[in-house]
């Protein structure tokens, strides 16, 4: 690819698989490559309760589609109500007069026929942590992947650090990526490298003029930040889930990003460790003045870290506010997250 060419995301290699995943088809309904589908199969015995009523009701594709449409209509209704209550003019600056770090308008993304994002609007102000709440499959992860070019939106505007993401060339996109940190759900540490090498890797790639001493001191500083300076020579396989997240955070922060994207940072951790990670996120935000977007299901994490929360349902934003405001909502769907 020429440097001046507009960056386009690679198409997924296995569109059929993507489609099946996106449609949420169970494995049993997916294509069987053995080709034995024609053979007579004995129908599984229905599981019934004491009254003989079936406990598991299998839905036909038409019923599933109808249920999806119903959920989407409800979500659209909520989104409409949110837009009516919000001010008609979008805010172009925050209270201190600085422009937002991210502005997204009408973002749409579909995998084949399944629309995962159906017109998302949001903004993140400087120094703010925006928490995105929503149930599985509501499009949260796809949303943040669209912000770093891991997924490519079909439609909409993504303005990040004042640049229109969709018109950037590959080198320009990489400039944005260097200013953006991304903490993956499973930390995504390079498992063939030690902790030291994991942290040194981004520096080796982007800070070629930096001396080895400076790199070493930076690595130590980051490990001190996350309280794991003793693990410097360990392999990622020797680390616990919480430690991996901390190292992942340290690796991401070593390039001093202005924006952090956290993809379910506390998922799979016990309550205590999850709280430690949440507190670490707050500490790093204050220390380095980082703006962030956090995708989570974890309400204690949202309560601790959120300056503002948006709630996503069926690919649209249906609610927005602080934790306290949303906690008091009368909407049954919103209340289901808090109780």
């Amino acid at each position: 690819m020429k440097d001046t060419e507009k960056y386009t995301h690679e198409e997924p290699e296995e569109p059929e698989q993507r489609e099946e995943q996106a449609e949420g088809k169970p494995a049993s309904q997916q294509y069987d490559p053995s080709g034995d589908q024609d053979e007579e199969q004995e129908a599984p015995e229905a599981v019934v309760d004491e009254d003989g009523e079936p406990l598991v009701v299998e839905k036909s594709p038409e019923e599933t589609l109808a249920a999806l449409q119903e959920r989407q209509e409800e979500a659209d209704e909520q989104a409409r109500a949110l837009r009516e209550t919000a001010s008609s003019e979008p805010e172009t600056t925050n209270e201190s007069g600085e422009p937002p770090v991210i502005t997204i308008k009408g973002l749409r993304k579909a995998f084949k026929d399944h629309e995962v994002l159906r017109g998302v609007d949001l903004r993140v102000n400087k120094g703010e942590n925006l928490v995105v709440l929503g149930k599985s499959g509501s499009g949260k992860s796809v949303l943040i992947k669209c912000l770093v070019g891991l997924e490519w939106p079909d439609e909409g505007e993504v303005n990040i650090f004042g640049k229109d993401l969709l018109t950037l060339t590959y080198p320009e996109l990489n400039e944005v990526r260097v200013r953006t940190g991304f903490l993956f759900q499973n930390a995504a540490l390079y498992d063939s490298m030690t902790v030291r090498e994991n942290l040194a890797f981004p520096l080796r790639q982007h800070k070629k003029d930096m001396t080895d001493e400076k790199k070493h001191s930076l690595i130590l500083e980051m490990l001190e930040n996350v309280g794991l300076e003793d693990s410097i020579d360990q392999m990622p396989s020797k680390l616990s889930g919480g430690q991996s997240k901390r190292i992942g955070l340290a690796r991401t922060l070593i390039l001093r990003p202005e924006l952090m994207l956290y993809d379910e940072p506390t998922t799979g951790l016990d309550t205590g460790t999850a709280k430690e990670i949440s507190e670490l996120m707050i500490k790093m935000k204050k220390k380095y003045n980082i703006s962030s977007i956090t995708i989570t299901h974890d309400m204690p994490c949202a309560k601790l870290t959120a300056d503002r929360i948006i709630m996503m349902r069926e690919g649209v934003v249906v609610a927005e506010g602080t934790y306290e405001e949303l906690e008091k909502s009368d909407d049954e769907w919103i209340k289901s997250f808090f109780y």
Partner: protein
Amino acid sequence: MQPSLNPYQKARVRITEKRSEWKQFFHGAGNLVAFMGRFIKEVVKPPYEWREIFYQCYLVGYKSTFLIGLTAFIMGVVLTIQTRPSMAAFGAISLIPGMISVSVVREIGPVITAIICCGKIGSRMGAELGSMKVTEQIDAMEVSAINPYRYLVVTRTLATILMIPLLSVFADVIALFGGYVAMNIHDSMTIRHFFVVALAHLEFIDVFPAIIKTFFFGFVVGIIGCYKGYHARRGTESVGLAANSAVVASTIAVFIIDMLAAQITDLL
């Protein structure tokens, strides 16, 4: 419950499935060609990840020497032992070293080396990159503005391109040594005499095309291993599948290249 289909409907379902399989096959083949094209585009652009290239050369080259050496030695021994009775019947035992050297250098050495590398290196690359894909390590590189293709694919493929020819030459030498050992089971021949006779039968047309084709073997072993891993689906099962299909696809590719090389050499 699945609806019962009449024979006509069943046939239509079968045709649709087959069509979909072929479509997928051509889709995959097209992607592989694009992946190879990207390698050619990226490999000419510095800077290079020298550290990773040397490390991969160590893994591909040095770490494979024992397996390649052992296999080549056995091949040399077996080839000599099995050829000897026929040659003895014609009173042409003195031609055995020459015959062994030509067959080893032209065909057996490069092909056996490449096939071992398909199994050992192709599967490792498929599994390694597949697991990196599944655990989002490749995505992590991408979002850190590090080109994962350059760091993972270019380095590994360059290593196989450089190392498989060297391993092939090493296999030739060891196989000839195996032939010498086998010759001395029934006959008596000095190692110097064996190698002088063996090398005397080799011509430029035996050696040069054989070496050239090993670069192509190296290319397909590396690029197919990386391609299968790089495009692994999400899920742990796909890691095994990537490793497995890397071995199968690269072995087939090696045989196809060998066949083409034989045809081209024949024309020279």
